[in-house]
């Protein structure tokens, strides 16, 4: 076996194969830096070239690309607060506040090194488990998967921001939003309002962008300055490295979380960063800095998401079951190359598997090195006046959002959820808890139903299930205890947000209670199996939200931790004016199509809000227009059209 490992390494280290891997790595970094594109876009860019390539070189190229995307997408999470792929959503929570503090360099280097170690660990796990992968994967049935989702949900307790009821209500809200679309047990459409778009459910990319990126962007625009408030860019590279070294056991533990959840097919990998984030929270003594720029909050998720890839490859290679969208594409690439995944990958085609492992390891090291070289230049962005950055952010966010299904509805969904995100942020409803609920919603329901169908109540007595129950209870206990003692808030400072006028909070909470009531009523339209979950979640949500409402309605003195309003001491008109600009961009798209709207929006926004001179306007608009065009051309994209396109047949890119 060692022979084979070494011979595949030597086989990989030829000039042309390494060159193809470098192509993959370069494209991966480029794609990773642009939020919302991620591995799926990168692989679909590469697939046409794979056709007819030498298999080893092609595999090296594809793995090279996949390996660096979760490293490179850290840039946008840390520097701009935009979580591109789902792999970087948890990084935003602490990475972005660090950048705002002027510690972008520190956050990035900590993240990159953590990523690299995680990636290498993933490769190691893959090596060690190739032979035993099949029995390992087979030991996770629906019952175990259900307990894993419950374990994921239990982490909400630690992220509730000091008010457990509010945290549970936020997670329930996420669960309800995750229920949109076909019910797993019966295929009935729930909460779809008879719209074809909603029958697929809401897209995670869009929810992530709307809940995290948009509210931050509007808030930054209000400040008027740049992202980084300090002036200390150069500092922190070594500090970040030291942070990672100091947190070496955390890195290792989170890598294990990433690799294990990756190996288990059926649990979405988007939950991995959150599991490791909560793990980082739970195992840190001084929790006061979480949500405000704690390096451990960056290191945990970053080491996990690179390790996930190694684990994720396991079910893809051994069973032909892709655990994620990018794995599905990788699988397609393998089929195009004539490589069939299956038991043979641990046997006859073991050389291919080892090539994949080596590529993974080498690409991780190269990718980290490249990111570190690039970082100082990219990090400067945080010192540019934000009004000049904002239109680019809006461009990137809308562009990323319509990658989801490439329809105008993606943009509408983004806008509506963005408004929800603004309120969640303002009133301190944990957005992390919301997202965990959203991500786990259908899986929780699906696996509970399947476990009961397959095994009846006996599913609770399986040994692995009992272990997971113990883990879940432990995680709950830690979370609740810590909530009482020193609460962490991922949404901002509690002291700064104690309001005297409570009616805006009361109104929002009332709307939330009403929404849960609606979910319960709407749920009852379904057959029994599809009704159970919405009604239970709706009741939990309604009760917890009503508790919050009760506390808030009794006035500031009584409300305590339920009282939270970041606008409590605001002097200006709030973020709504900028939200309106963003809505304007989308309305304009509906009228004249995305590309024309984009150009027009840039000119008007830069003139009116940024007060740029015409030369600057011209240069920035040309940059945006040119880059978008280049990318769309390379990816064969059509932009969402508007009313104008419905009546006139315009040439691309206006089409």
């Amino acid at each position, binding site marked *: 076996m060692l022979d084979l490992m070494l011979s595949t390494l030597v086989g990989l280290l030829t000039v042309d194969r390494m060159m193809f891997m470098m192509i993959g790595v370069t494209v991966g970094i480029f794609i990773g830096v642009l939020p919302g594109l991620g591995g799926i876009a990168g692989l679909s860019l590469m697939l*046409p070239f794979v056709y007819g390539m030498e298999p080893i070189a092609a595999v090296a190229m594809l793995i090279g690309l996949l390996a660096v995307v979760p490293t490179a997408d850290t840039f946008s999470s840390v520097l701009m607060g935009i979580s591109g792929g789902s792999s970087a959503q948890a990084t935003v929570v602490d990475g972005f506040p660090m950048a705002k503090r002027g510690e972008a360099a520190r956050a990035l280097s900590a993240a990159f090194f953590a990523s690299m170690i995680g990636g290498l660990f993933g490769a190691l796990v893959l090596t060690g488990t190739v032979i035993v992968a099949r029995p390992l*994967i087979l030991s996770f049935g*629906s019952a175990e998967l259900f307990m894993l989702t419950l374990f994921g949900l239990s982490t909400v307790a630690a992220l509730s921001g000091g008010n457990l009821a509010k945290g549970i209500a936020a997670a329930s809200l996420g669960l309800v939003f995750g229920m949109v679309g076909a019910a797993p047990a019966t295929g009935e459409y729930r909460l779809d309002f008879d719209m*074809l778009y909603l029958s697929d459910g809401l897209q995670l990319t869009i929810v992530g962008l709307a809940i995290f990126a948009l509210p931050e962007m509007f808030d930054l625009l209000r400040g008027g300055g740049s992202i980084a408030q300090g002036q200390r860019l150069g500092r922190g590279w070594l500090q970040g490295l030291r942070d990672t070294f100091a947190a070496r056991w955390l890195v290792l533990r989170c890598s294990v979380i990433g690799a294990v959840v990756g190996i288990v097919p059926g649990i979405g990998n988007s939950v991995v960063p959150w599991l490791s984030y909560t793990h980082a929270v739970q195992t840190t003594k001084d929790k006061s800095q979480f949500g405000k720029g704690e390096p451990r909050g960056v290191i945990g998720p970053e080491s996990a998401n690179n390790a996930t890839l190694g684990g994720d490859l396991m079910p893809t290679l051994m069973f*032909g079951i892709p655990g994620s969208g990018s794995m599905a594409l990788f699988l397609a690439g393998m089929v195009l190359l004539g490589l069939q995944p299956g038991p043979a990958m641990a046997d006859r085609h073991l050389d291919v598997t080892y090539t994949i492992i080596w590529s993974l390891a080498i690409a991780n090291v190269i990718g980290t090195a490249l990111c570190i070289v690039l970082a100082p230049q990219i990090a400067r962005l945080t010192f540019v006046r934000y009004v000049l950055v904002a239109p680019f952010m809006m461009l990137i966010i809308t562009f990323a959002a319509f990658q989801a299904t490439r329809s105008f509805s993606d943009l509408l969904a983004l806008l509506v959820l963005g408004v929800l995100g603004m309120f969640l942020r303002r009133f301190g409803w944990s957005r992390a808890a919301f997202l965990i609920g959203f991500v786990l919603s259908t899986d929780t329901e699906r696996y509970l139903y399947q476990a009961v169908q397959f095994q009846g109540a006996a599913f609770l007595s399986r040994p692995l299930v009992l272990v997971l129950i113990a883990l879940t209870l432990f995680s709950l206990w830690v979370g609740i205890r810590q909530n009482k003692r020193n609460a962490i808030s991922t949404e901002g400072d509690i002291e700064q947000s104690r309001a005297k006028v409570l009616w805006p909070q009361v109104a929002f909470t009332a709307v939330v209670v009403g929404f849960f009531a609606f979910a319960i009523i709407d749920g009852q339209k379904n057959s029994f199996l599809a009704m159970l979950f919405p009604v239970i979640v709706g009741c939990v949500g309604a009760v917890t939200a009503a508790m919050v409402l009760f506390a808030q309605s009794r006035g500031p003195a009584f409300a305590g931790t339920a009282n939270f309003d970041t606008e409590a001491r605001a002097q200006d008109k709030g973020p709504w004016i900028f939200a309106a600009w963003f809505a304007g961009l989308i309305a304009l798209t509906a009228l004249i199509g995305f590309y024309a709207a984009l150009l027009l929006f840039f000119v008007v926004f830069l003139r009116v809000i940024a007060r740029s001179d015409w030369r600057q306007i011209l240069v920035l608009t040309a940059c945006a227009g040119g880059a978008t065009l280049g990318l769309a051309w390379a990816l064969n994209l059509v932009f969402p059209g508007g009313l104008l396109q419905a009546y006139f047949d315009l040439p691309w890119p206006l089409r």
Partner: protein
Amino acid sequence: MIRIGRRALLGAAAVGVATSARAQAPVSFAGRTIEFVIPFAEAGGSDVWARFFAPALSKHLPGNPNVIVRNIPGGGSITGANEWAQRARPDGSSFFGPSASTHLPYLLGDRRVRYDYTKWTPLIVSPTGGVVYVSSRTGITRGDQIAQLRGRELVFPSQGATGLDIVPILALHLLGLNTRYVYGMRGRGEARIAVERGDANADHQTTPAWLTQMVPMVRAGAAVPLFSYGVPDAQGNIQRDPSFPEIPTFEEAFRLMHGRAPDGPGYAAYRACSVAAFAGQKPAVLLKDTPAPIIAAFRKAFADAVADPDVIARRGDILGDYPQAVGPAADALYATATTISPEARDWVRNFLTTQHNVRF
């Protein structure tokens, strides 16, 4: 929208007149980009299939146009099909690759469907096949012992009663086998694992997965094939699948079970759904009102592509061992795969509503 349609129609008519006047001026797509529209996201069967054909079509279409794959995902392929039906122009600038998940809602009369197969014309139909099998835990070791399964409960992990799984659901119902369906599977791979793990004991797999994943399990004695869906021959009679000629067809299994050939609206419904889902799974189509020379050029390009030694050498699991239906064969297979008699449709809708909680 209306305006474009009308203009395009006028244009097409003008082209038609011009071509007949010039007596078959050669069609050329030189310098053009032609879109192969696929109503699914990247990856997945249809996308791989389209990406496999795109370069070959580029080579064989007159003028060697650039053929690109455009994915319009959503609504289990209904979104993309609706959109293409609404927006496509009859000039050959785009053609469409629907699949079983597009055919079945149309056949079942899903109210979200806004497309009509009779307005399209097939260029090629790529068949695939499938096998229904049980785990050896059921106690049988050979497919011809199927009668021993009577009265036992089969547990079948399913992705949903209105998708591809409608075919085994109807087949097992007609055979009179008592089957409990556990829904919510996210792919055939998950279902296969559920059987391997012992949670379930019956399942079906399509040809590529059968050959690579299941054949080893059959050899190991863990899985027992019951029947395949077969392929219709030129006369429309179901023959054994060329990929696994040793496995009997559903019709043979039915005769073994009941001692007679299957008939009635239930069988008609099964036939329609099974051909739509497997033998006629992947057609490529143009709008029917596209000028005849353009349609002819596309049909010839597909015929040349499937005869291209390079394509044949690379076909692997993407096309498998199935003869690719082009020309008149494509018309016949396409017609069978996209039509269902009103009685059979009523029967299957009623069946799904009463037995599987489906609401139409």
